[in-house]
């Protein structure tokens, strides 16, 4: 570097208008170009991943749907999923997925938002410094541990409350409840971000008009943070829909269309985990059907994520 600089004449008596900047820019720097190319490749790997997912899921799903034994119409409307007998109706699995997710959100949404309100509006800094990291530990616990908790604690608890005849050993209620607990920190942290982003002036305006703290929170802060809260809800649903281990352990391995949360019903993810855990022969209907299910899952979660991101960007209130 020093070498390159000192070799340049500092002044040029003949022509004072030499464009030194242009000369420096034009100098070829192969290392720089190569490095930039490599770094771009690193970034492009994320695109390749998405393309890979789409290609793999699409390709195998196509093989599944074009199989003579499979009827596309039946896949989206059928109410029986029994690969052994050639019944490929996705509804029992989708229904169980929706049921566990709904139970999870009924638990996680109020708990998460209330906790966020407490942490953001009420908690003293010292209390917050203890409560928030503690709640975040929950987010770091592997989901298989939550599954263990569902099966060995919540299920026996439900069975002792509602009776062993009502509640089956594997049931959607237990899986859903624990999934809710798992999602609480996610909702709480996203909601807290949304609430904290509401400027202080809005709160002070409300206090100035004589509103109590609760009135300020509910009537001023919450509406101002609404898009963030909705986004948190959607991300929560997306997490619940894609969650595998809790339902694989606690929700049971029988695919059936039931609306009773105390019965066993296999979810999309639970089914994929159970079937792929066994010995699968590549190209068999069992194998390709899993990709059709994964594609369904991917489309649902991607849709939810896109909606959530759109909401946050579209309805973000700009205060300044």
């Amino acid at each position, binding site marked *: 570097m020093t070498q390159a600089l000192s070799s340049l004449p500092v002044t040029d008596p003949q022509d004072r208008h030499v464009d030194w900047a242009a000369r420096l820019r034009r100098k070829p720097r192969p290392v720089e170009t190569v490095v930039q190319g490599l770094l771009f490749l*690193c970034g492009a*790997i994320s695109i390749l991943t*998405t393309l890979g997912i789409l290609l793999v899921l699409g390709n195998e799903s196509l093989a599944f749907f074009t199989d003579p034994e499979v009827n596309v119409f039946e896949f989206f409307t059928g109410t029986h999923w029994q690969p052994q007998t050639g019944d490929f109706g996705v509804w029992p699995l989708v229904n169980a997925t929706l049921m566990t997710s709904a139970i999870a959100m009924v638990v996680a949404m109020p708990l998460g938002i209330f906790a966020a309100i407490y942490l953001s509006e009420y908690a003293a800094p010292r209390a917050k410094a203890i409560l928030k990291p503690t709640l975040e530990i929950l987010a770091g616990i592997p989901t298989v541990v939550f599954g263990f908790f569902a099966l*060995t604690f919540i299920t026996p608890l439900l069975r002792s409350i509602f009776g062993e005849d009502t509640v089956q050993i594997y049931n959607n209620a237990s899986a859903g409840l624990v999934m809710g607990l798992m999602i609480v920190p996610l909702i*709480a942290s996203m909601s807290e971000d949304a609430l904290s982003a509401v400027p202080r002036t809005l709160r002070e305006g409300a206090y100035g008009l004589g509103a109590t703290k609760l009135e300020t929170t509910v009537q001023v802060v919450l509406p101002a943070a609404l898009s963030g809260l909705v986004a948190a809800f959607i991300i929560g649903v997306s997490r619940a829909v894609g969650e595998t281990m809790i339902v694989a352990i606690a929700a049971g391995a029988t695919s059936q269309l039931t609306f009773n949360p105390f019965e066993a019903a296999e979810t999309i*993810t639970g089914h*994929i*985990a159970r079937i792929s855990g066994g010995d699968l022969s590549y190209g068999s209907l069992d194998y390709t059907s899993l990709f059709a299910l994964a594609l369904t899952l991917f489309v649902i979660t991607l849709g939810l994520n896109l909606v959530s991101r759109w909401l946050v960007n579209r309805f973000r209130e700009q205060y300044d």
Partner: protein
Amino acid sequence: MANADRIAGSDVFRPNLTGRHATGRFWQTAFLGATTVGILGLILLMLNIVNNAFGLVAYADGEDYLKYSPIPVEQLATSDLVVLLTNELSTGAINKLNAEQPLDTRSRSDLLALVFERILDREVVASSTLAEAVFNRQAFEADALAKNPDARFVFKSWVTTDFLTVPMSSQALFAGVRTAILGSLMLIGLTIAIALPIGTGAAIYLQEYADKSLINRIIETNIYNLAGVPSIVYGMLGLAVFVRVLEPLTSGAMFGATDTNGRTILSAALTMALLVLPVIIVNAQEALKAVPDSLRQAAYGVGATRWQTIWHHVLPQAIPGVLTGSILAVSRAIGETAPLIVIGASTFITADPSGPFSGFTALPIQIYNWTVQPQAEFRNLAGAAILVLLVLLLTLNASAIILRNRLSARRAN
């Protein structure tokens, strides 16, 4: 002023205000309650694990020890144990054991475990949780004795040094997590080795080089969306691409490895690397963003090129933040189970993983496998394995945090 006094002092206003404050207090309690419920859930979760990892075990021997030794085998000398094993087990079994570790160099507890497992057919009759052992001991003992009148009882911590150092066994009493721990550690190491350079590279590109062109915006949005893809979908990607299409590479066939398939540590690590990339990229980007621009300007000012600026000045400043991201990535990867199941981690494997091309099992897989067994003693094992997993998680986190603090302290000086 007079007006305000009149409103505040009016009889209409006062009772209303009390009511509003009461509502406020009620809801404040509710908000605090929700936070407490979340933390209570965490406490219950932990207690439930501890409750399962310790307990009373009723066991019985399938064979009477008198057949083999006049005194209880626990009282035999170590050399007699070796003799007993050599006499009673088949030559093939002895050779296999010797190949793992010669019998006469093994510890006494190891030999005893072998005698109980292989010769006396020691089995669990019934197993209890910690709560049962403390509060309901009589009922548990009566039940166990009804099942097998020869049952003997011992209070057992399922987490022991043996549990950590012996491989998997179908007998709960003799099962351990050695192979699973080794598998998990190798998997995590390989995952980070793949994901950290790529993730940091991608972050540098996006933060330092990329303009606002279409392709760069697509990359940014794409990374955000990838973070929301369920992990099991990554598992399907890994199954189709790394296990199947790239089998010659991931099975090691290209490098002369034989009789393996694509269901190897390498396949799993590649899948996990894709899974944790968004976490690493986003965190590394944040770290790079936090490096003050004056640093870059100063470097440019003395004539450094862009890459020289990044490599010598920006990156060293950002390292602590990048490390935080990799801590998060490791924490995520070490507990991730679903993609490993899809990729086909073995649930029953007793040989240590030998390298990137060997089949493997991992701690979360082992936990899942034990949890879904119907017998109570396997729940105990699962509880113990969870404790090990959580301790491992904690250790990795703590060491990375310490490392990060050291680095930033050194920077500050």
